[in-house]
């Protein structure tokens, strides 16, 4: 476990105004780290942020990028995740870094747990540590979870965290790797790890606004998972899962301009799977589950457990509903603040949405900032999105937009 905490009250007066600074930089890890540090310090040379979140493409490895930043900001909790794309209020990027720096009267505690795939309870417990407990005078809290969903334990990690934290509000995202589906990393301070989870809890005098929305609808007939173990689905309706996907989503894919299956590259296959995801019915709602990759024998690997016997429907979505759902998530986060002005927001947005929206994805990021009041935002394109409030019964999502607004 790696654990950090920081109280601004040691140096700052209670009630200091919330300030968010965001930005997008490219270059080498070294030049990017220098540029981020400069921008953070230019925003307020007098104080360090309480929290910095770094979202970086695998082309700028976190292990090279983040430690110099963390060492230069010893009084700041620095959390990080590798991405499948980055976004700010200026739009989206590939092969770059987006950062989010938070200043104000907050308490921040964070931990990192390893071995998520092998023992999810142990990893999440390590990330929570002993430090989370209500802090006098700070009535509101939110916990940010960053995790490696290639471990196949996305939902499991969220529910274990919710169980251990009680009534905490949870948000976050699953790290990406530019759709390679090979290795995703999260970090806390100078510690960067694969198959790991980071949990940062922020305490505030002011409420946090959370918004979530997705735009997917069921397309296929109900399909039964007939052989599965953990996050690996081997067969659906008795046939290899990949064959079932081809059978039930193939015509949709052809209509959308995907190549014939025989001509698909591995990258095309990933895009196909992320475009037509699984949906679990829950009344009138659908929980979306992303198949991340397939094996040679036709099994599909998901970002969290899919129990044998589950009934799924392959889903689809239009660009229009993806745009509407992103703006709805931003609106809900703003409304959740109860009229307080938004200072800035963290965005956890699925790479699948980028695959559907294409060139329009960046414009939607700009529009989300506008919906929040023209504030700075930063986030990343993830392999799973996390949002769970007190009373919610599930917290891991796919093809979803999650917005955490600060006031």
């Amino acid at each position, binding site marked *: 476990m790696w654990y950090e905490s920081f109280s601004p009250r040691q140096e700052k007066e209670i009630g200091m105004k919330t300030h968010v600074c965001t930005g997008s930089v490219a270059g080498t890890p070294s030049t990017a780290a220098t540029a981020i540090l400069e921008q953070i310090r230019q925003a307020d040379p007098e104080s360090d942020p309480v929290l910095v979140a770094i979202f970086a493409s695998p082309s700028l490895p976190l292990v090279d990028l983040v430690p110099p930043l963390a060492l230069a900001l010893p009084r700041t909790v620095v959390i990080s995740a590798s991405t499948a794309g980055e976004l700010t209020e200026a739009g989206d990027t590939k092969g770059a870094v987006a950062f989010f720096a938070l200043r104000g009267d907050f308490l921040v505690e964070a931990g990192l747990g390893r071995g998520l795939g092998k023992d*999810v*309870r142990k990893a999440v417990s390590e990330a929570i540590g002993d430090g989370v407990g209500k802090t006098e005078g700070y009535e509101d809290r939110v916990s940010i979870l960053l995790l490696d969903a290639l471990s196949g334990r996305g*939902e*499991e990690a969220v*529910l*274990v965290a*919710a*169980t251990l934290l*009680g*009534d905490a509000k949870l948000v976050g995202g699953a790290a990406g790797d530019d759709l390679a589906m090979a290795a995703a990393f999260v970090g806390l301070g100078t510690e960067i790890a694969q198959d790991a989870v980071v949990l940062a809890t922020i305490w505030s005098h002011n409420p946090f606004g*959370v*918004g*979530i929305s997705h735009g997917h609808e069921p397309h296929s007939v*109900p399909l039964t998972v007939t052989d599965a173990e*953990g996050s690996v689905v081997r067969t659906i309706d008795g046939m290899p899962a990949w064959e079932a996907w081809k059978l039930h989503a193939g015509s949709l894919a052809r209509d959308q301009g995907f190549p014939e299956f025989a001509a698909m590259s591995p990258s095309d296959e990933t895009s196909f799977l992320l475009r037509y995801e699984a949906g*679990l*019915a*829950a*009344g009138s*709602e659908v*929980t979306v589950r992303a198949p991340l990759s397939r094996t040679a024998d036709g099994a599909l690997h998901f970002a*969290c*457990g*899919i*129990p044998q*016997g*589950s*009934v*799924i429907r392959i889903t689809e979505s239009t660009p229009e509903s993806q745009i509407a759902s992103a703006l709805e998530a931003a609106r*809900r986060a703003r409304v959740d603040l109860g009229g307080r002005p938004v200072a800035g927001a963290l965005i956890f947005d699925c790479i699948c949405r980028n695959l559907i929206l294409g060139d329009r994805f960046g414009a939607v990021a700009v529009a989300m900032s506008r919906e929040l009041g023209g504030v700075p935002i930063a986030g990343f394109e993830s392999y799973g999105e996390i*949002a*769970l*409030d007190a*009373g*919610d*019964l*599930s917290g891991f999502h796919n093809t979803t937009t999650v917005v955490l607004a600060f006031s």
Partner: protein
Amino acid sequence: MSERNPSGASGSTVSISELAGYFERAVGEERAAALVAEACGELGLGFGPLGHEQARSVLDRLTRREGLIGIVAGFALGRLHFARTVKSGKQFGEAS
């Protein structure tokens, strides 16, 4: 965020569909209903409304399952306890 909370409607008893509701978002409604029915069958319980201790025993039974189902069941136990605590006006930490 708006998700259905089956515990929100609970009174002195818990219906089978309320219990299944705890699992729907994570495993889908069909599997959720089957899971609860299986556990009720294993415990020799009928499919009518359950008392809180019976509901707890169903969830406790499901916590023994491997993987996601066991984790969801553990999470649901906490939610069921929370719902009852709120309903009865008890404070956290008081014996239930």
